Every structure is written in C-alpha cells, then in structure tokens.
C-alpha cells in the first residue's frame, strides 16, 4: 500500500469512527479489508482503496469502517467492573431511589453482546433488585454486524468458556446443537441500536449507569474529550460511568471525577458545565 493510500484510509477512519490508525497497526489493513475487497468483486485491497478514492461510495466506506473495528470482547471482562456494579453502584442507586423507579443502563460499545449480557446477569442476581423491577439495558455499537450476533444471543463453546463461570452457563444458557443460547429472560432485557459515538446520541435519553469500555482507547485526545463530555450529559446527576482498565478521564475532561477507592468508576462532577 502506498503512503498516500495509507494516509487516505487513516483520515477516513478517523473521521468516520474516531479510530486512530497508526503505521504500527498497518498489518491489520490487509487481513481485515481483503474480505471486503473480495465481497465487492475486487482483486486487492489496493483496488478497493483506489475505487473509493475515485468515487466515495458510502456503502463501501461503511463496510470498510465496520471491518476495521476491533470487536474483541468476552463475558465479565476484567471482572472488577461487574463487582463494582453489584457491590457499589446498584446498592447506591437503589437506596437513593427507594427501590422504586426505573433503572437505565447503557453499554456504549456493546460489540457481540457479552458485556451487556454480563450486566444483565449481574443485575438479575443482585439482591437489591426486586423481581419485576423496571430495568432497561441499551446496547449500542457502530457496527450493525456485531449487533446482529448480540441480538441472536448465540455463542460458541469457546466464547462461553471465556470469563463465564460454569454456574452461570448452567443457569442462563441452553445448548442448541453445538452452540449455547442465552435464555430469553436475560436476552429480552437488552435492547440494541446502531449508534456511532461520534454522532449525536441524545435521542437515547438519560441513564443511571454507562459502561463505555475499551473503545475510547482507539480514539485521539480530542475525540475522547468530545465523547466523554457528551456522555456526561446523558448521565443522571447521581449516575455512574464505568471505563475500561486502560482508560481514564484524567487530563481529558473535568466532566467526571474518579470515585475514590473504586478503580474504573467515575461520577459526574457537579460543578462542570459543557462549554457552549
């Protein structure tokens, strides 16, 4: 690939999804875009890039953006965030709400569903949440492809053995041929929408808890600030933000402050207002 093609692709990805493509990641281009090129009836990735440089076909552009996303995820990833949800966030919210009212949780980079479903299983087992309480979990991602899989609730034997305790497999899954399917009681608590975090997401409404994990790491500083400050506006005043293990708000925005003693948990900063 020529340096010009690389720069073109890098700029396109940064604009469309926030992804910062550095030269050390260029090995990903061939493996991820070769299938797209083939699907479009082209001979090579170079031809694919040349085609959209000549004429920007939006459909092809989005399949390139989608193919370049990293969708790596697994059940109860890092474990600690789900313990925080169960031991700190849920007890705090339910005591403030007196058990009534609706609880809304947003999983802002849901990928193939393991994270929102881990949230759903955690909430299902939380003693504070009475059966029949109103809990709404919204899972969003830029990629419609991963959300299709998330909606199906179908996982391979390999996927259900990464991070999922056997007790939870027994309790929440059925075996269908060689796959494992999440029971409807959990599957139906999560709704999915395609949503690019770089675009306006006010339509999703306000939330009590936002999980935004392992997506901001791919963005540049300005996009991180922009997304986090708009997330703050979708979070209720007493709500909680949970970031990935390698992510922070420090030096990026004052919209949130770290909750002391709880790594990865962030609360709204009451004094903060978004610049107009």
């Amino acid at each position, binding site marked *: 690939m020529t340096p010009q093609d690389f720069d073109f692709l890098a700029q396109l990805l940064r604009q469309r999804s926030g992804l910062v493509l550095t030269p050390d990641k260029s090995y990903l281009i061939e493996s991820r875009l070769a299938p797209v090129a083939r699907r479009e009836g082209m001979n090579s990735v170079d031809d694919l890039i040349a085609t959209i440089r000549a004429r920007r076909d939006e459909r092809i552009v989005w399949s390139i953006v989608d193919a370049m996303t990293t969708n790596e995820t697994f059940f109860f990833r890092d474990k600690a965030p789900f313990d925080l949800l169960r031991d700190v966030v849920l007890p705090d919210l339910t005591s403030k709400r007196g058990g009534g009212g609706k609880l809304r949780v947003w999983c802002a980079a849901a990928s193939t569903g393991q994270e929102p479903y881990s949230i759903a299983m955690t909430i299902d087992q939380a003693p504070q949440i009475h059966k029949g309480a109103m809990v709404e979990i919204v899972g969003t991602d830029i990629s419609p492809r991963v959300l299709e899989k998330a909606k199906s609730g179908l996982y391979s*034997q*390999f996927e259900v*053995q*990464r*991070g999922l*305790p*056997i*007790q939870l*497999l*027994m309790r929440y899954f*059925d*075996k269908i041929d060689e796959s494992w399917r999440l029971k409807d009681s959990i599957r139906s608590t999560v709704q999915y929408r395609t949503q690019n975090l770089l675009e306006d997401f006010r339509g999703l409404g306000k939330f009590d808890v936002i999980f935004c994990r392992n997506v901001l790491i791919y963005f540049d500083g300005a996009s991180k600030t922009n997304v986090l400050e708009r997330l703050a506006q979708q979070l209720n005043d007493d709500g909680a933000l949970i970031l990935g293990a390698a992510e922070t708000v420090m030096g990026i925005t004052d919209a949130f402050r770290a909750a002391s003693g709880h790594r990865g948990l962030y609360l709204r900063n009451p004094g903060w207002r978004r610049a107009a």
Partner: protein
Amino acid sequence: MKTCLVVDDSRVVRKVARRILEEMRFDISEAADGMEALERCRGGMPDAILLDWNMPVMNGIDFLRALRREQGGEKPVVVFCTTENDMDHIAEAIRSGANEYIMKPFDSEILESKFAEVGLV
C-alpha cells in the same frame, strides 16, 4: 508453589495441560486414570485437579465421588476437562463436587480463565 494433579488417559493431553499449567507456575503431577489419581491423592492432596471424564479402570466422575469421601478430600479444587459438553454431564459433575468445568478442546486462555474463576490464580 501450588500443586496440580493432571488426570487424563491421553499422554498428549497431559503434556499440553502440563505445559500450560507450568507456565502458570503450578507444580505438576500426572495420573492416567481415576484409580491412579486416587492413590496419588492418598499420598498427599494437591491444591488443584484437572480431571478427564472417560478413562479406563476408573472414570473421572467415580474418582471425584470417591475423592470427596476421603480424609481431606474436600480440599482440592477440581476442574473437569472433558469432551462431554452437554448440560446433563455438566450438572452431574457439579452435583458430584466439581468446582469448574472445561469442555474440550481447550487452550491456555480457557484454562487460565477457569482457574482464575475458582481462585487458583
């Protein structure tokens, strides 16, 4: 260093498991069937047991039931590791005292994830 007894009638599987577990800093011993495993346990209980189901002489589930009746036999953390991958087998294993369950084929990631689940790493 924690000890782990690897019980499987396939020498290849034992070798693969040993390599992964040694990297996780376990001290490994091996047994080729349930009877041999039980004798080893009587000589000293390991911290963990990675246990196949189908084996000659004594199978994994019979070994597990016998182990849990032994003096000190409640101590080892038992992780089944078998090609049996249906809900009935899983439920029977857990009912009989297994702590975790791996469906073959496995790799280092699955083994590490399952051992972490039961507090072994």
